[in-house]
């Protein structure tokens, strides 16, 4: 793989984002902050919770979710958007998805730090459980890459899949416990069961448990997320490899 090129490409893309505008850097902080504030106000009412308390709950998984969403959407279009290069020069098909993934990850780390700063003002207790956060990030990142690669292959062959993926992500977001607390529903009710076994819940718990519930994610959380992220990653890598000869004809 063209690692030299990958490095330079990512470096310059990030550089360009922040070069001409100071706002570019602050936007990274302001945008999630605004998003967080609006959603906090609305959903604290829905969840019948105190605003500060709910903001901590929401923040825990929202920033990670926004990363997942951005990474998947940009990786999805990366092979097609790489046509400017891959129609003229031999470049490994992995270069485009991985560069988009790296860019999204760096932007996420900035946003995450910004969100941590905001949390300093509203979260009282900071506990030892937060040390697992780097591992949570790694699992989310792997899942984003794997799922993004699968989408990238699908999108190259079927452009109309984009709307389907977007809708799927929207549905996942609103049906997961990112916004709505499981405790809102009666125990063993259908809604709480659906939230509990929502496949994304396990990923959400990786952030919510250490941040909001002040406990470590369970072994089940770790194993389910590990299996899902590694499997999607391997599947994505294999799909790109298996179809690498066909991409040119669909660009």
């Amino acid at each position, binding site marked *: 793989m*063209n690692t*030299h*090129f990958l*490095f*330079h*490409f990512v470096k*310059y893309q990030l550089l*360009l984002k922040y070069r001409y505008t100071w706002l570019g850097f602050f936007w990274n902080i302001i945008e999630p902050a605004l998003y967080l504030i609006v959603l906090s106000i609305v959903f604290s009412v829905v969840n019948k919770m105190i605003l500060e308390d709910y903001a901590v709950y929401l923040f825990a998984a929202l920033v990670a979710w926004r990363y997942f969403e951005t990474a998947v959407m940009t990786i999805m279009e990366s092979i097609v958007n790489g046509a400017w*290069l*891959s*129609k*003229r*020069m*031999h*470049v490994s098909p992995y270069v485009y998805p991985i560069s988009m993934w790296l860019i999204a990850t760096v932007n996420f780390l900035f946003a995450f730090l910004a969100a941590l700063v905001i949390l300093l003002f509203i979260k009282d207790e900071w506990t030892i459980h937060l040390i697992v956060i780097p591992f949570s990030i790694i699992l989310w990142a792997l899942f984003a890459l794997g799922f993004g690669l699968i989408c990238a292959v699908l999108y*190259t*062959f*079927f*452009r*109309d*899949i984009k709307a389907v993926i977007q809708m799927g992500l929207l549905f996942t977001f609103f049906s997961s416990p990112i916004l709505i607390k499981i405790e809102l529903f009666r125990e063993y009710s259908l809604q709480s069961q659906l939230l509990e076994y929502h496949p994304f819940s396990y990923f959400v718990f990786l952030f919510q448990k250490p941040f909001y519930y002040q406990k470590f994610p369970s072994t089940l959380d770790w194993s389910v997320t590990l299996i899902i992220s590694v499997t999607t990653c391997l599947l994505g890598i294999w799909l790109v490899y298996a179809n*690498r*000869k066909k991409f*040119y*004809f*669909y660009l």
Partner: protein
Amino acid sequence: MIEIARLENVCVRFSRHNFEEKSLKSYIHNLFKKTPAKPFDALKHLNLTIYEGQRIGLIGRNGAGKSTLLRVISQVIIPQAGKVWINKTKKIVPLLELGIGFDPDLTGEENCFLAGSLLGLSHSQVKTKLDRIVSFAELQEFIHQPVKTYSSGMYARLAFSLATEIEPDILIIDEVLGVGDQFFVKKSVARMQKLMRQGTTAIMVSHNLDFLIAQCNRLIWIDHGQILMDGSPVDVAKKYRTSA
């Protein structure tokens, strides 16, 4: 003689519906269609061996498969059938277009690093060559400006200068020498000739037959994805001219 590239029985086929629609909808639609769209064969069972130091010109009508052949040799297209072997020890620089890997928002210098890395050069290797690249392109004043502010001639000069300064073993050129003003064309042809004297293998497509006769020592005439004639430039050019 050292082999540079060997193509055996290479076929490249474009399915026609690819050009029309790339959607799940049309995919499902095509599953039920009785007569599938007829594919277009850009290259048909093509055999070709290229040796070191050869200067090959490719001629043929529009759509004959010249550019597709260059893309197969540059490994941009992986053919559906046949074998392609490329000498991995040689540095191939495809100039299928000038300015491959350039980002319009980056400065000239940054683009040298970016496009240089694409051609297999490390940061420090580009750094040592940068002065020569810039002075050959005559862009000393503008090298810290974004290339989107360049005129098309300036852009082409920088791209050509970069691609040839890295001393490729194999240069693949697709109709890119007609850019820039007369002085630069002269200068770039001179540099090409110098590279070739040093033993660089070149494969070029051009519609300028006289240029090819003057520069090449092997001329290949391609028609409908097949090699029609392969030999000395004068003979092939004569036959080609009478066919038109």
